């Protein structure tokens, strides 16, 4: 909650700064409008600040609105960079082609979610089907999945967060998360709720793992940066930016910055995602 609020506020500040910039300073700063997925947004915010400090001649206008809206904006020429937590759809590609826009995909990070339980919980492994059953409300007792005879308390994220969407797509589809799930407003709040409840199960971004909670293996695979990058981990997806044609000029500078292991990829790790290995 606090984080999203912060992001929105920063987005507002950026927008305000950019709208007022032409009048105040006549500096010919090149503006790059970036919009799209709220999952990618925190990476862009974090890397963007440092990028603008390093390149005062380029200003970024960053806002969220969802992957679909981002790609739509790119197709309509309303932004130069679209952030997306999924690949472009065939229909969207066609729409762009009609307007002369050729969307080019660049992966910038890997988002991996990890199911977590209280350290006292004996359960080590759950299959994707079991996780889906738990969150759809069909499995309600831990002993149905090899644990104690206790109710399962499922902790989810509020339904508009990017984490919830990823979970929905990679685990839940075509089911929906049962309304009886407790919802927490941030990764940190989920960690706290799970750490304080022996019957709880939750899911968090990879970067939020710590010793107060226990990660669960899924389909027998352990969640590590390697298994996520090699795509063995079943709850991982790549996060992308889309540009019209191959990145060039200022946009190329931004892309290079994002992919630099010492710069953009550091922001990726700090935001709780997994940096791409090497370049």
């Amino acid at each position, binding site marked *: 909650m606090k984080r999203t609020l912060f992001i929105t506020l920063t987005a507002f500040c950026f927008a305000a700064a950019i709208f007022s910039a032409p009048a105040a300073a006549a500096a010919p700063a090149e503006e790059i409008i970036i919009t799209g997925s709220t999952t990618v947004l925190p990476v862009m915010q974090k890397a963007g600040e440092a990028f603008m400090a390093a390149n005062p001649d380029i200003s970024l206008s960053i806002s*969220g609105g969802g992957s679909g809206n981002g790609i739509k904006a790119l197709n309509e020429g309303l932004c130069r960079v679209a952030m997306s937590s999924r690949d472009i759809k065939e229909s969207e590609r066609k729409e762009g082609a009609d307007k002369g826009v050729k969307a080019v995909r660049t992966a910038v990070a890997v988002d991996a979610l990890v199911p977590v339980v209280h350290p006292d919980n004996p359960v080590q492994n759950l299959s994707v089907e079991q996780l889906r059953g738990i969150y759809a409300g069909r499995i309600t007792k831990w002993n149905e999945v090899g644990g104690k005879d206790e109710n399962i308390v499922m902790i989810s994220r509020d339904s508009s967060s990017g984490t919830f969407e990823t979970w929905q797509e990679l685990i839940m589809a075509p089911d929906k998360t049962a309304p009886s799930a*407790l919802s927490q407003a941030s990764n940190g709040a989920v960690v706290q709720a799970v750490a*304080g409840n022996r019957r709880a199960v939750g899911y968090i971004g990879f970067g939020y793992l710590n010793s107060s909670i226990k990660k669960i293996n899924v389909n027998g695979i352990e969640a590590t940066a390697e298994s996520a990058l090699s795509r063995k981990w079943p709850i991982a997806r790549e996060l992308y930016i889309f540009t019209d044609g191959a990145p060039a000029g200022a946009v190329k500078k931004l892309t290079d910055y994002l992919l630099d292991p010492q710069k953009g990829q550091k922001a990726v790790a700090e935001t709780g995602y997994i940096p791409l290995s090497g370049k």
Partner: protein
Amino acid sequence: MPAASLRRETAVRRILAVIAGCSLLFLGMIMLFLFIEGLPLFSTVSVSDFLLGMSWYPTAEPPEFGIFPMLVASCAVTVTASAFAIPLGVMTAVWLTEVARPGVRRMCKPLIEMTAALPSVVIGFFGMVVAAPLLQDLLDLDSGLNLFTASLMLAFMSVPTICSVAEDALFAVPASLRAASLALGATRRETTVRVVVPAAFSGIGTACMLGMSRSIGETMVVLMTAGGAGILPRSLFDPVRPIPSVIAAETAEASFRGEHYRALFAVGIVLFLFTLAFNIAARHISEKNSGGGR
């Protein structure tokens, strides 16, 4: 001369009217904005589906906007909180005016009013970190974040409001009434129960209504302690999701002027109507029995 001072008088009056008008205008515009942003939702979602729908999946395809579980949750939390807060608040007020010695009263009143100034996020944090784990272990609950914990924290928040307003009302009961009652041979207890409290009834009613409207509109406490499950509560210890917490949790992520955004504003309209009803009720009570108290 008199003409000049009269002119000055009119000028001052006009300036004050303009200032008062401004604040009314701003409030009116906020209300107008709320309705302009929220009402378009009902071109795609029917009012009955919205108010009586059981599931809230604002970002699914197709989205569902049913707020019935949240309405029930808000009412349940408010009623439970009032069940704790009203007796506690009113009794404390009675004790302060009728029983406690003036010195004690002078010390206690500011203390109680100070707790009214506690930021709600502090109370919410306390509920989340201290009260919820305690209740969870003590009562062996599935989760300490539930209707009961949230109500307890809300009660904690509204007791000072209720107590302070009710105390003012009781204190305003003329001493002559008490004296008359005692002179007729009534005991202190009879005087308090049969004379002073009825005389201050309207003020006490207003206090209760104000306390309840504070509970129903409170956001941070329920966001942090109610658990946030969009279900109809079957027991006091089920997690619930009251209306304000939905708005707080989702507004930052809803795309501007999208359907989800409209839905959140429509939820805001419902909340506004709720608190408006409470305030009208409070006013009604205080006007109806404007004999005693305030």
